[in-house]
């Protein structure tokens, strides 16, 4: 599986994503600077986490207008696969590749901790290695992960099975207490209608080795190998 990781000024999970992709797929991803106007021919483009442009404007708003994003959009429009994790998810909503917006966490504080996620749809290129309804552990680390969309959009996302990951408690229930940021319907990750663009706030790339506290993030990458190789 060939991949590319886009680097914006103050991306800071780029190395983590590169390390995970290389370790799991066996191929070192291409590293693409935000001002580059070309992306090599790849199976997957990853927008990593971080604070692109300092998040001084709305998170992801500046990055969404970087020169390279034109090529990312073209790739996605051709049906190419794109993932956006954390700040990358925010960039995807800012470009309109995914619907909705990520607002400030409802308690107005940055949150970094392990959360439980329920795999709501395992029939995607990014989740096929998980069981349907499987509850996995993944770390979150964000200040603006409070997913918002209007009622119609939410209904469409739910009806079309496009809510891929949801914050749940140990029993798999989407409770208020299990939600780290106040997101609508406990949404942690969504996918595009064509199932080629996925955005999620949690960081599967940080949980791929026992030493990191678990390996529940592995399935995310293994799914892509299954689907894209």
């Amino acid at each position: 599986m060939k991949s590319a990781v886009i680097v914006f000024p103050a991306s800071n999970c780029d190395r983590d994503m590169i390390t995970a992709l290389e370790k799991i797929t066996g191929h070192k991803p291409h590293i693409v600077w935000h001002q580059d106007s070309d992306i090599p021919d790849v199976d997957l483009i990853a927008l990593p986490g971080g604070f692109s442009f300092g998040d001084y404007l709305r998170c992801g708003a500046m990055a969404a207008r970087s020169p390279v994003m034109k090529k990312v959009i073209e790739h996605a429009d051709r049906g190419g696969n794109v993932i956006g994790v954390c700040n990358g998810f925010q960039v995807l909503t800012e470009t309109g590749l995914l619907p909705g917006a990520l607002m400030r966490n409802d308690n107005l504080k940055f949150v970094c901790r392990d959360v439980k996620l329920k795999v709501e749809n395992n029939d995607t290129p990014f989740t096929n290695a998980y069981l349907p309804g499987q509850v996995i552990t993944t770390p979150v680390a964000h200040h603006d992960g409070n997913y918002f969309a209007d009622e119609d959009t939410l209904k469409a996302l739910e009806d079309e099975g496009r809510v891929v990951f949801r914050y749940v408690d140990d029993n798999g229930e989407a409770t208020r207490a299990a939600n780290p940021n106040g997101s609508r319907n406990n949404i942690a990750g969504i996918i595009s209608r064509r199932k080629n663009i996925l955005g999620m706030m949690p960081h599967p790339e940080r949980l791929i080795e026992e030493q990191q506290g678990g390996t529940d993030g592995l399935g995310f990458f293994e799914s892509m190998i299954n689907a894209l190789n």
Partner: protein
Amino acid sequence: MSQTPAWNNNVEITDALVKEHGLSDEEYALCLKILGRTPTLTELGIFSVMWSEHCSYKSSKKHLKTLPTTAPWVIHGPGENAGVIDIGDNQAIIFKMESHNHPSYIEPYQGAATGVGGILRDVFTMGARPIANMNALRFGAPEHPKTRHLLSGVVEGIGGYGNCVGVPTVGGETNFHPSYDGNILVNAMNVGLADQDRIFLSAAAGIGNPVIYVGSKTGRDGIHGATMASAEFTEDSEEKRPTVQVGDPFTEKLLIEACLELMATDMIVAIQDMGAAGLTSSSVEMASGGGVGFSLNLDMVPQREEGMTPYEMMLSESQERMLIVLKPGREAEAKAIFDKWDLDFAVIGEITDSGNLTLSFKGEVVADIPTQPLADNSPEYDRPWIKSEPKPELKADEIVAPADMKQALLDMIGSPHLCSRAWIWQQYDHQVMADTIQKPGGDAAVVRVHGTDKAVAISTDCTPRYCYADPVEGGKQAVAETWRNITAVGATPLAITDCLNFGNPERPEIMGQFVGCIEGMREACKVLNYPVVSGNVSLYNETNGTGIHPTPAIGGVGLLKDSRRMVTLAPRADGEVLLLIGETKGHLGASLYQTVMEGREEGAPPAVDLMAEKQNGDFVRAQINAGQVAACHDISDGGLLVALAEMALAADRGMTVNINGGEVPEHALAFGEDQARYILSVPADKAEVLIGEARAAGISARKIGAVGGDELVFNASLRLSVQELRDVHQGWMPDYMKIG
């Protein structure tokens, strides 16, 4: 007498102006002697900041020189931007801790944020990629009306900066005590990783080489920050808000990447960050360190505001700036890197053979100071001091036993002193870089050396109530506790950085605390072979004449050669046997038990037997490295029972403990804070052998219980569900912050 430069003839240097700049009569006389004439205003400003307590260490130097600073693994000790130690394979760890106390009290978010930014620059300016942030925080009493605001702002500021630059904040410590009501302490530590053959120093060289300014533009923020940090607080200190700098972590992140990219080339001769006293201290240190002169054209300094004077430019503490001496002819190549990262890059001068810092502005010379005497002949004081008499011993039976042990443990673990700090560290990205293998909440934070089997263990510690009761023992204990915490995860402690926070050194009793703590630290460093490689002194932590508790915060660093051998404080399985290593005498003087249960702080602190520390610690570490130990926890604040409770919470497992204290009353057995002790959780079949080996080595080791069930049981006096313990442990801080 040479001619005074023309530019400042219009400002008369009066006695009042000199006094306003914090220079004493003797210091000003020395300044006149060095210059051979009356200084210009710019020069007066430069002398003032260079000779401030903050930059010159004039009250502390004499004593700091007595600390051990060498070991075979020390590559650079104090004197550089940060300390450098060898971790093998041509790799080095570079680290330092620094205070940002005064600004954080005045403006907690920006004060703390720029504290993090400053310490990051001290580390990456030497060629290291920062890999971990730590901190040591002290706030006033929870009841104090400002404590919530300060705690909230400081934590948000540390997170706001560290999270954005993408360096994990992996741990720290937080204390509450009324002595910090008017003077909180914010000590930030950074640890970086470099290749030993790519370490960069600040000493300039090469006559004619260009001097380059990179990073943010210079504004009027932070002028006189170093001077503010060298005076006591009064009621109107909050009017000093304009002297607090504003941080820009986005620019810092770009600066890190751009500098590391430049450092991967062979273009750099010397590099120095602009920290306290900004352009002044960086240029003086680079020039004096290399025995050369600097000629700078201030018109070329990138400026954020119009009409800035040379005085303002030289004293500004605008953040995220660096000064670089390049090899000749490499300017365009270097500039391309900074252009890529959208950072200012300006050639502002060159190296000369004059030995002077010569500043020109609008075609005129505005300052011309010999740098060697400015840097090296700075005043040094042997301030009078009075030995702090250690408080008398307090026997356990002079401290009331609790009516109910269960309630006593809940009171302790639910107190501001021992409750869970998750509310704090969940606001820090402690996992970015994906190498954090021991998260906040353990004895030491552990981060892997990326791409290797090695890992670095880090701990920040100090027990100010011990230092207050007996500075010598307190100083020893602060060093020993970091050493013990690093040992408890299985790492070998290598070296420390110190951040010495004290009151007004002009008061002999405060100076006595300082001298005492240094004496204790010195002894501990010697015996534990654990030198000081970097540090910082913060004096004048006083408000209206009341000093803080003496607080020599220590940041220790250790190495795990095989990170897979690391242990945490969480037992791994039911049936494991709990062993107590070290002697229990039931020392309750200056204990947290006294503070929480009786609201007093009396008696001498526990004695630190450094030989026992070393012997017990070396034994524990060897057992961990041999794979004999499932979990380990050092015993510190709150004593044995609190340590057991913390292990039960970490593992979410119960434990049953039966321990006969002999002559030691049960509350002293449970809550005494005797030093040099650890609790080990070991597989049942390994316990006897381990005890035998300990005893053969003359180390006190005994079986005290086993892991299992969902209750913590302590002798016949306590039975408590782990869930109840957790509710109380986790409750205090979120509840406290909610009410605010």
